[in-house]
């Protein structure tokens, strides 16, 4: 039986190493983030039920959710990082890659399509020098498509940050992003 001893020690060592790594994860998130997450946890029956709120809290502080942040949130919610990743990547407004200071959500659903959102997207892309899913080199904007924004009587529409822009024309895009160096030229 003596030959088993080293194996047990190795396992114990690995376990304590993992514990140390996990306790280090708590330090990844700020006090403000943990406090906000704990407030959400207090409203739900079990910790992992606050998963989406926790992801949104961290994103609101940092703009996006990094791998390190994701592992720390998962640890705090007592769930696996893999499960949390499955949740994070399901929702289009949880960003697992860095985004610009303002996210442009360009509606490309049917009413906006009828009113020419494809040309509008080309114009925005040209002006900013980015395709859908990309961020401008100066980190000001990320351009994303979005499902129907519920303002179809004012189509085409898009959101820039928190602001809804209605009846958007190519001229309006020019005015909105005209000062941007882009990279399109």
């Amino acid at each position, binding site marked *: 039986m003596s030959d088993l001893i080293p194996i047990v020690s190795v396992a114990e060592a690995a376990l304590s190493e993992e514990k140390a790594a996990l306790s280090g994860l708590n330090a990844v998130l700020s006090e403000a983030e943990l406090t906000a997450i704990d407030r959400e946890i207090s*409203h*739900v*029956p079990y910790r*992992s*039920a*606050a*998963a*989406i*709120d926790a*992801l*949104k809290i961290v994103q609101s502080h940092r703009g996006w959710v990094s791998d390190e942040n994701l592992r720390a949130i998962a640890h705090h919610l007592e769930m696996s990082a893999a499960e949390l990743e*499955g*949740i994070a990547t*399901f*929702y*289009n*407004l*949880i960003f697992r890659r860095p985004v610009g200071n303002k996210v442009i*959500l360009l509606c*490309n*659903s*049917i*009413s906006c*399509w*009828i*009113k*020419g959102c*494809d040309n509008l997207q080309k114009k925005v892309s040209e002006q900013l020098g980015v395709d859908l899913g990309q961020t401008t080199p100066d980190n000001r904007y990320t351009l994303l498509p*979005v*499902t*129907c*924004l*519920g*303002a*179809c*009587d*004012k*189509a085409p529409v898009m*959101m820039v940050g*928190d602001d*809804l822009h209605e009846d958007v024309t190519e001229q309006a895009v020019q005015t909105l992003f005209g000062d941007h160096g882009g990279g399109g030229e």
Partner: protein
Amino acid sequence: MSLDRPLTRNVRPDRSPTDLAAYEANGGYRGLHGAIGKLTPSDCLQILKNSNLRGRGGAGFPTGMKWSFVPMDNPSGGHKYLICNADEMEPGTFKDRLLMECDPHQLIEGMILSAYTIQADVAYIFIRAEYIKATQLLREAIAACHDKGYLGKNILGTDYSLEMHVHVSAGRYICGEETALISALEGKRANPRAKPPFPQVSGLWGRPTIVNNVETLCNVHHIIERGADWFQSLGLTADAGTKMYGVSGRVKNPGCWELPIGTPVREILEDYAGGMEDGYQLRGFLPGGGSTDFLTTEHLDLAMDYDTIGKAGSRMGTGTMIILDDKTCPVGFVKNLVEFFARESCGFCTPCRDGLPWCAQVLDDIEQGRGLQEDMDTLARQVEFIGAMGNTHCALAPGAMEPLASGMKYFREDFQRHIDGAGCPWCDGGIH
């Protein structure tokens, strides 16, 4: 005769929000005062049943019947939940935004009386993240109601208590499906759930739960205050009440109006939306959002109600019409919708996850001039497979097949022209 428009009576021309004082000055919260502690929950349920209110989220299920499945004996004393589905994302639908941005207290009052009827003690408003203004207004309205004693412990001094929360979503169209919404609220991936068990029995956290659309809930306190007969009298046909109708596309005056349910399509299109834009002809329309079947010019005199539109082979859905004009390619139109549904599939079941991208690819081939004659058969077969309820886990994929199947029926010659001419006739000198 002035029309009775209960849902939009506080909507101002400039669409500025109505606050608590203005809401109450115009008779707001009278329904609440008249019901809580004065009518029993079963009185309220009976009024709702008699009113023939049907769900305004698209399915048109009778609201009173839906609520009647909630168990009213609650020996364990556990929570019961009311959830407002404010995740408006159906393509071409823009009615709930207006109701919440212009008159947030109407929704809150409707929710309090709905929760009282099913004796829910916790209510959620599940709202999409892009509705920033509505979220803020609803939070302010909830806080104002707490101060007034309309929410919280012992409402109006009775033993009825209700907490209300706004939950801001993190995206995805599928969250509008009621069981997917419950999954999302529980912090999970928003996969729909198999029914039974129905949410009325086992919903949020396994507890009895009712999920209703914004417009549905906005009707409730009017009905309880003014009675089932009054509500029935508002409709022009067999359906009861008013409906938020909308029109988008190439019309002169796109917009959203509250009208008696059963108003003819032509009246909505011509009198309210102002008819087609100059230089555009009407070819067809989706009556109520992206997942409804096309109807055409032959259907203009139909009444916009659940049964009439259903008999014509479509669904009234959300009641917000999307117009197909003669300068827009029907194949491109359908392709946009099918691509939307393919993108928004939750990925749980194979027909939806794999079938919708397949359809989208075939439509793209046809639109780009790579279409083969047998592609029409492929699409028809997919419509048959995916469109049949029961082959998929939820209604998303069958919904996606509605504009595709009806588009192929009414605009078949346009599909054929794409294949025969190896290209899109609208792309050469047209818009799309």
